[in-house]
């Protein structure tokens, strides 16, 4: 079993961190994982993306061009990358920035809208807008669970930011909930 994912968005939207936490959660689950960022002369407001693989087997290429899951936090990412997703794959898009009827949908792909900004605002901190992604990916892939993510956050955030974990986990739960409810 191998899950190949791409997380893409504007720099600052937290796609690299979301991908890292998911990779780390997969590691906590005892799976083989890899996280590979795009890198270059990047700047705030530019685009950023990373490939994440969670696998039971030895991971071949860490650079993913045929994801089962694409997380698109902005419209340019969705438009430039949705063709890469394999048949029966899932696209989780940020419905706070991408309107459902503006999407040129591809047949055979499951689209899930995730109102990332609204969820974050509801929780009172716009910085957690990337956390619903984690909950949504958790629900779609079942590759890891809440405990794994919590451990990943503890390891990534360190002692000083550990107090932020509860809030982040709430945002994760909202993401999961959105997928379960099937709200697009």
């Amino acid at each position, binding site marked *: 079993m191998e899950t190949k994912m791409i997380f893409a968005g504007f720099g600052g939207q937290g796609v690299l961190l979301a991908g890292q936490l998911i990779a780390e959660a997969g590691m906590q689950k005892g799976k083989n994982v890899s996280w590979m960022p795009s890198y270059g*002369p990047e700047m705030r407001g530019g685009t950023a993306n990373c490939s994440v693989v969670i696998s039971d087997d030895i991971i071949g290429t860490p*650079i993913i061009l045929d994801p089962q899951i694409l997380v698109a936090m902005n419209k340019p990412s969705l438009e430039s990358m949705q063709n890469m997703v394999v048949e029966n794959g899932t696209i989780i898009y940020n419905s706070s920035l991408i309107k459902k009827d503006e999407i040129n949908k591809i047949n055979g792909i499951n689209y899930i809208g995730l109102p990332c900004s609204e969820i974050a605002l509801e929780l009172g901190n716009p910085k957690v807008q990337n956390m619903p992604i984690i909950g949504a990916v958790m629900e779609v892939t079942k590759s890891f669970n809440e405990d794994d993510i919590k451990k990943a956050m503890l390891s990534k955030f360190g002692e000083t930011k550990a107090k932020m974990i509860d809030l982040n986990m709430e945002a994760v739960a909202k993401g999961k909930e959105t997928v379960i409810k099937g709200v697009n």
Partner: protein
Amino acid sequence: MEKKLMKGNVAIAEAAIHAGCKCFFGYPITPQNELIEHMSKRLLKLEDGVFVQSESEVAAINMVFGAAGAGARVMTSSSGPGLSLKQEGISFLAGAELPAVIVNVMRGGPGLGGIQPAQSDYFQATRGGGHGDYYTMVYAPANVQEAVDLVQKAFDKADEYRNPVIILADGVIGQMMEPAEIKDNDNSANYKKDWAVTGKEGSHNILRSLYLDPHELNIHNKNLTKKYEKIEANEIMFETAFIDDADIMIVAYGTTSRIARSAIREAREKGIKVGLFRPITLWPFPLKELKEAAKNTKNVVVAEMSSGQMIYDVKLALEGSKPVSFVGEAGGIIPTTKQILEAIELASKEE
């Protein structure tokens, strides 16, 4: 230390610290900056640690010469353009037989090139790189854990043979995060450095690469050659996968070997019997081992993130016994699984 999700660059630096590396000299360059950054954080906290961000790569490698000559475990790192600047110093290290670990996180060239991953410094790394008759050992990791293990081994082998060892990684290995466990592996006490310079109060050792008497220099070169032959006899590392029933053998190292592994899985699903030969030491290159592994195959495909450099060693190994084809991209473009799969399919149709 338990398994941690780490960037290759950070893991290489941390592995060096756990192997007893006390000195680091370097100059920043993408895609290996996290390595220098981590070294600065860690070494400055050690009582006997030394970190200098030098004024240039030329200065850095000569600082490495000094630290190595004084008997310290020392490392430097860079990418292609910086490695080119360091070649004079590496030649001097080889000439004076000084141990050092040198990391090259390769990017596209030539010249300043670009900052995206490449494997185009193969020739430079495996043929000495600088002037004179010499070789450096070259380790090519394909994942972050292997990078950790090879860096730690590199320090031991550098001391054992009194020779520079190059870790030839690429931008993917440097930038990628994977789980890695870094153990304490400081074996420096096993290597008695009675040749090191200790200051005027201590020994009268002289470390030099200058021999004006050609007869003396000839003897020095013959001794070096004997050392290289010993390394060739004892230090070859490689890995094979799916090779037993293979009709086609792919040869690839580092990141490209992983893309090849993905392509092999897809090819096998299509019924094409293809296997992987992955050199881990690029010098010494597993010449005999490669020929032996290819024995029952029809042909060989070489995949590289360059215009084709290792392919010459593969041809040397096969001694004309098999047809060899090439697939690769240069300049920072990473060959895709699909491209390698197509090369496999093409090879499978050849007679």
